[in-house]
């Protein structure tokens, strides 16, 4: 239905796309609530939330952004939660063997990560590389993608041999998980916006994430959730 609005509009970081679509499908089936998603970069979505975007829920992989929204009075403080932790994974281009682990990256050509200047997965990837002491030497071969979804696409186009991306986006394909100990946790934060405060569907969506089914879906997509 084109012009019929969803019951709740969720603005969410790109790494949640696949998992959220599935959770929304469950919610629609079970409670008849339709969820409309606006996926984008956490940074740009934050600016929009701050300037009056009609989003009921804001989801970011960067806790600081959510804090900022709450501090600016655009988010309901009590609703703020960290609902999952994201993980990194290595993928490789078609025809390129998967690296066994992060240590072996020096044998590959270009490596793509999300831009650590603003993308949480980029920050994490940088930390992981740094903790192995590889970052400086790798820097000139690094491509900084706009966001994790872009990073996946650059690998798919064959323009980078290897990508360090969100596990949640590559769960269905060959990948190597990056040990979570190599970087700070990528905490997925959620908050109901001031606009969405009175929207029951917004609350139901947040609950759905925290429900048993929701957590099952998230963990299937590679997010770490507190054991149900």
């Amino acid at each position, binding site marked *: 239905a084109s012009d019929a609005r969803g019951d709740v509009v969720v603005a969410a970081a790109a790494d949640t796309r696949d998992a959220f679509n599935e959770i929304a499908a469950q919610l629609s089936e079970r409670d008849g609530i339709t969820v409309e998603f606006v996926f984008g970069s956490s940074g*740009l979505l934050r600016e929009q939330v701050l300037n009056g*975007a009609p989003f009921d829920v804001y989801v970011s992989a960067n806790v600081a952004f959510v804090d900022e929204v709450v501090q600016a009075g655009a988010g309901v403080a009590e609703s703020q939660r960290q609902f999952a932790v994201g993980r990194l994974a290595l993928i490789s281009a078609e025809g390129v063997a998967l690296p066994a682990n992060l240590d072996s990256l020096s044998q590959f050509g270009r490596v793509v990560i999300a831009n650590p200047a603003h993308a949480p997965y980029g920050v994490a990837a940088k930390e992981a590389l740094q903790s192995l002491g590889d970052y400086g030497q790798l820097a000139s071969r690094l491509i900084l993608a706009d966001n994790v979804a872009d990073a996946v696409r650059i690998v798919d186009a064959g323009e980078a041999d290897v990508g360090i991306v969100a596990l949640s986006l590559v769960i269905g394909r060959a990948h190597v998980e990056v040990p979570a100990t190599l970087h700070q946790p990528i905490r997925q934060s959620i908050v109901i916006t001031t606009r969405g405060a009175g929207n029951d569907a917004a609350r139901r969506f947040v609950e759905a994430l925290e429900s048993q089914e929701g957590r099952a879906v998230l963990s299937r997509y590679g997010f770490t959730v507190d054991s149900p």
Partner: protein
Amino acid sequence: MNDWFPLWLSLRVSVIATIVAGVLGVAIAYVLAKWRSRWASLVEAVVTLPIVLPPTVLGYYLLTLLGTRSSLGQSWESLFGSPLVFTQSGAVVAATVSALPFVIRAARAAISNVDARVEESARVMGLAEWRVARVVTLPLAARGIGAGIALGFARALGDFGATVMVAGNIPGQTQTLPVAVYDAVQAGDDATARTGSLVLGAIAVVVLVFVTQLFARRR
């Protein structure tokens, strides 16, 4: 693509934006061209600036300027009852601002190139200034104005960055075709992206051929 909403929205937004930018841009270009001052090219350079900013950044500044927290945005809301940003009006504003510099610069060049002697002779014939503009200057500058409007339309139709910031990417409400294409690319939905691009291209070709013909001087 099984959802035609982005197509209609894009058509509507880009046509309205082109008309607004066309009228406004030609008026500004006319004033700049007739303004015999060294400042004219400085002002012209400044109005060209929106092109130099990445559209997203332009959109960011527009959002700050027109958002619900800005005084402009608040006046709009109190006048029209709904906010300007994240609505179709917002999309029109973003597309208009993106298109305007193209119209201005191309039209200004064409208007400046019109032979002043022909305009003089029209004044001596007794035509008032606005009729000189309508009967002589603008028709003789038509091709250049047409080029500006064509570029402006293309820019308005294709705008992604500014629209996505100012109007959002709200499916069924403010999701224009370029935004939908971008979204499809992000989602890895190549088929939709390809169809969307083709449709965009097809519309553009039809409209651009039409615009070019419309502004080609006859006689």
